[in-house]
């Protein structure tokens, strides 16, 4: 599995520190990241794709530096945002999926084949020529996943991928991410049922890793602390 290494990573934004001296080594397949609002879990997820640059410290994803080797990294690390509406770049479903293959030197035929296969995988084949914004929330999130997976990344980072979805669509996305997708997954989530299905849970609070390990005990301690506040 892809190794994720953070060495004393600090991320500062104007007026606040989002991550404080975070050091982590993760090589499990399904990694859940939990914590209260503003705990730093989304910032951690974003550093893995180079969307956030550490103020100090080093990040390595499969030996790649997300800041200095961003182009190389983004072919290996896909990112799924919480709001499916903000991930759609091209007008139709098939065009949006194909967008991820730009600049890879593939022929039109190869792109068409890969788009067809990727849409079939997430069950969106019949919507290929539909306007992407006409899809339902769950379908848009499946399209976002399709657009990530079509590039065949080794790691998928998902930041609250079920936050905007109803129960049925959340289950559909969760099943896809946790059971059907072979890639390594970093899942930042408030949904503790999803976290419980991962191989390891990392808990952030106030920009620091305060707990990590097997899901059940980490989640139990988190729930206990939440009940106390």
């Amino acid at each position, binding site marked *: 599995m892809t190794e994720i290494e953070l060495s004393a990573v600090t991320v500062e934004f104007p007026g606040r520190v989002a991550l404080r001296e975070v050091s982590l080594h993760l090589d499990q397949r399904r990694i859940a990241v939990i914590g209260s609002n503003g705990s730093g879990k989304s910032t951690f997820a974003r550093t893995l*794709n180079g*969307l956030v640059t550490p103020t100090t410290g080093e990040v390595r994803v499969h030996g790649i530096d997300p800041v200095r080797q961003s182009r190389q990294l*983004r072919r290996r690390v896909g990112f799924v*945002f919480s709001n499916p509406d*903000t991930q759609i*770049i091209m*007008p139709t479903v098939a065009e949006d999926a194909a967008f991820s293959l730009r600049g890879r030197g593939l022929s039109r035929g190869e792109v068409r084949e890969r788009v067809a296969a990727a849409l079939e995988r997430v069950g969106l084949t019949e919507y290929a*020529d539909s306007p992407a*914004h006409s899809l339902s929330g769950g379908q848009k999130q499946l399209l976002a996943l399709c657009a990530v997976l079509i590039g065949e990344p080794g790691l998928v980072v998902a930041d609250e991928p079920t936050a905007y979805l109803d129960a049925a669509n959340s289950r559909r996305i969760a099943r896809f991410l946790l059971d059907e997708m072979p890639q390594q997954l970093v899942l930042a989530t408030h949904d503790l049922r999803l976290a419980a299905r991962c191989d390891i849970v990392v808990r952030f609070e106030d920009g620091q890793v305060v707990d990590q390990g097997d899901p059940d005990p980490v989640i139990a301690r988190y729930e206990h602390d939440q009940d106390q506040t």
Partner: protein
Amino acid sequence: MISLYRPGDSLLHRLPAGPKLLVVMALALGVSLAPANPWTLTGTALAVAGCYLVAGLGALEIARQAYKLRWLVLVMVLSQVFFLPALTMAANVVRVVVVILLANLVTLTTRTEQLVDAIERALTPLRRLGVNPSRVALMLSMTITTIPVIAGFATQIREAQRARGVPVAPLAFVVPLLIMALKHSDDLADALNARGVD
């Protein structure tokens, strides 16, 4: 550009985007310069309707596209009816409607991807002047994608204002719309970065 592609296998669907755009531009020029007499106007309108039928879009689609232009037609009629002879006014209205229907015919029978590729190819000579055709093409695609998003924001704001009983106030509409649009552009920039566009 807003009305999107309708899949099909007609002659117009199979015609490459570049030549199709050139033909439409030539037709639009021809329609604009054609003499304003009833026969030319009727012939032009029938020719455009024929093109829709050749594309397999049906009479209903012509009516739907024409109906979308009702407010434009109304404004054009009201602004000319008292100042121009009836035939000149009718010619102006028919010319504008025909040109818009022709442009819509292109987007209805051409995938956006092919249109954008054609525009990108057409802009290639401008590379010497420092224009990046790929960036321009991407910008066009994203503009098309963003129109329904911004329309959605506008609906959300109007509904939120109605729910709170706020009377119609342009500033109370424009400011949140601008903020939502700017936030969306930030999010879109992140999405582009995450998908490997610098």
